């Protein structure tokens, strides 16, 4: 029978190494730390004049995107290219699936072209699990966002950003603000922060944007931005989509910004050295004031840069080619 937590039998191989990266939930801390350590080493690669390493030479990676994305798709593409892999970008609005081909048929056809990895974004929660269940033995699946379920590489780039700026996680209070209900990013961040031992994970939103029983994922719930920000070391703002006004979740953008928008005044309630983060794309004046987004505490653009390093780390680890992965696995067998 299936139950939460057994996804690792799908995500990890017999030696406990990453095979697919579908969700942060249930992964051991050792794997998350490996990803961050490996990503640290790739940050340097991006800063060199020649930004390439030959780890995935000869491998073919398919970016299979069923939802539009600019940032995530391009950073995955850059990450694959910096690892010397060949990259195929498939945008579904112009492909066979738009003509009614099933996800499984699309996957099997692309596998028949001897591809090695799928980076998939899909509007349905669980889509990457579905692909992993049906993947050929040599093929790895990396989840680039499935429905409202998970966006594990985004969460890991956020963790890298936090670790590079704050060091250890254990004393940190992290506040996630906004549309938690529809956010796969928030779900993955919550799992990652708890696994890495963050001191406190807070979610801040009106009740209409909070999923039921969100406390059960290990969060403390606030409906007041002011109270929730008090003492926070990291403030993560989420994007608010305009459709939320139509579905009776919020009265107006104006009222939302008044109550939950991050302004300099509100930010002053957090710790003076609090980081401001956002997975992007940002809606200036809706969830965040420009002066904060562009201000000294904002690390929003750093997140984008670190996104490439994290995606390089995940891809190389899932393909068994990470510089440090084997040694680490050998050191700490589980």
């Amino acid at each position, binding site marked *: *029978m*299936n*139950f*939460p937590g*057994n*996804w690792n039998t799908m995500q990890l191989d017999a030696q406990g190494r990453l095979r697919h990266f579908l969700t942060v*939930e249930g992964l051991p801390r050792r794997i998350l730390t490996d990803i961050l350590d490996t990503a640290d080493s790739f940050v340097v690669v991006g800063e060199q004049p020649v930004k390439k390493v030959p780890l995935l030479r000869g491998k073919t990676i398919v970016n299979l995107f069923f939802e539009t994305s600019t940032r995530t798709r391009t950073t995955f593409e850059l990450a694959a290219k910096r690892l010397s892999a060949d990259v195929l970008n498939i945008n579904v609005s112009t492909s066979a699936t738009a003509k009614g081909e*099933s*996800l*499984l048929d699309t996957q099997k056809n692309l596998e028949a072209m001897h591809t090695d990895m799928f980076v998939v974004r*899909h509007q*349905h*929660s*669980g*889509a990457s*699990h*579905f692909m992993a269940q049906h993947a050929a033995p040599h093929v790895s699946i990396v989840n680039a966002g*499935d*429905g*409202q*379920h*998970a966006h594990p590489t985004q969460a890991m780039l956020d963790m890298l950003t936090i670790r590079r700026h704050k060091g250890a996680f254990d004393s940190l209070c992290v506040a996630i603000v906004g549309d938690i209900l529809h956010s*796969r990013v928030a*779900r993955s961040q919550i799992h990652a922060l708890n696994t890495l031992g963050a001191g406190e994970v807070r979610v801040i939103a009106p009740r209409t944007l909070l*999923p*039921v*029983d*969100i406390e*059960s*994922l290990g969060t403390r719930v606030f409906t007041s931005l002011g109270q929730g920000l008090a003492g926070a070391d990291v403030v993560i703002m989420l994007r608010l989509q305009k459709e939320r006004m139509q579905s009776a979740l919020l009265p107006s953008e104006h009222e939302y910004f008044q109550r939950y928008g991050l302004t300099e005044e509100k930010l002053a309630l957090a710790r003076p050295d609090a980081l401001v983060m956002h997975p992007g794309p940002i809606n200036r004046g809706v969830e965040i004031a420009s002066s904060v987004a562009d201000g000294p505490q904002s690390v929003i653009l750093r997140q984008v840069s670190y996104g490439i390093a994290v995606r390089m780390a995940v891809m190389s680890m899932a393909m068994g080619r990470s510089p440090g992965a084997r040694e680490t696995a050998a050191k700490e067998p589980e």
Partner: protein
Amino acid sequence: MNRIAIRNGHVVDPSSRVDGVRDLFIASGRIVAVGEAPDGFTPEIEIEAAGRMVCPGLVDLSARLREPGHEQKATIASETRAAVSGGVTTVCCPPDTSPVIDTPAVAELVRHRAKQSGRAWVLTLGALTQGLEGEQLAEMAALKAEGCVGVSNAGRPIRNSEVLRRALEYAATYGLTVYLQTRDPWLGQSGFMHEGSVSTRLGLPGIPETSETVELARCLLLIEQTGVRAHFCRLSTARSVEMVADARARGLRVTADVADHQLHLTEMDVAGFDPMFHVIPPLRTLRDRDALRAGVAEGVITAICSDHQPHEPEAKLAPFNGTLPGISALETLLPLTLRLVDEGAFDLNTALARVTRGPAEILGIETGTLTPGTRADLCVIDSGHAWRLDPGALLSHGRNTPFRGWEFRGRVTHTLVQGRLVYELR
């Protein structure tokens, strides 16, 4: 006509309170005696049932046979064959075929096909509103004249309360029972599973408990106003059981059923994104499951049904919310019900009553009993036979079951419909 003797079986018939080793005698399609043979009875066929259980054929309040309109999923011939292999001798089809059973012609078509190819009795519910669109009344009197045993909107919403009220009144005019599967037209309409901690974790849009109970409350008030006889289909929440119990205690003529999978599975089973667990109403909490079991035990819920919904393989071969809901369940109705006895949820007589006389009373038909004089619809069960479910071995065209690999005890060896042997385990 055939004279049949079923010898030495353990006859269990909750409706006539028989529970012991007896011979059973059939002539001209009817049960003529239980115990002593009638004078001069000479059987043409003898079935030895020592060590086996003999009980009324099962009556299933809801089975989609997919015909007409969805023959790529199943046909009346394939599904009635599956039914009798599971001891089910009567099935009732909801009206959401294609075309909808909202005219006598479609009801007649189903009846004709069932007679031609069917092994089990096939009853139909007529539509409550034309096209199940919830706007204009269907020709209920004509549907009744064509043999429809009740009317239903098959879980499709009737948004306009005035239309619902008039539909109930009109059905009451002709003494028709209205079958209501309650789902609010807005609450949780975009959902795929129970709204709770598991949906939060999986990021699957949720269907709150109130999706069922808000509509149930509206229906109860209009039933009270109109005095119609009503049946609530597929209860899924503890609160619904309470509401139906209260209504019955106040004297309302309402009954209720539950799908057998709701008595075994919960929201936790969805946690692996397996589309076989995608059902409507959704699998809910352990507390709901236990309340439903108690509702069955206490007689608030007087029928357990299969809610059979066979699908072609492709319908379940996609991520969870890209799949169609439903389980191919005719062949697991009896095994799942017997398993509840093994698990101590209730005793054997209660279990069998809920799949035989209970649903037959709701439908207002004479079957579901072994009382002498009634139609010989019955089955013989080898209750010690242990087996493991292999979806590939199902006779239904739909192999969509979440019970793959489950171990069951008890297997049908013979099924008789109107005294005719329609299934024998080889």
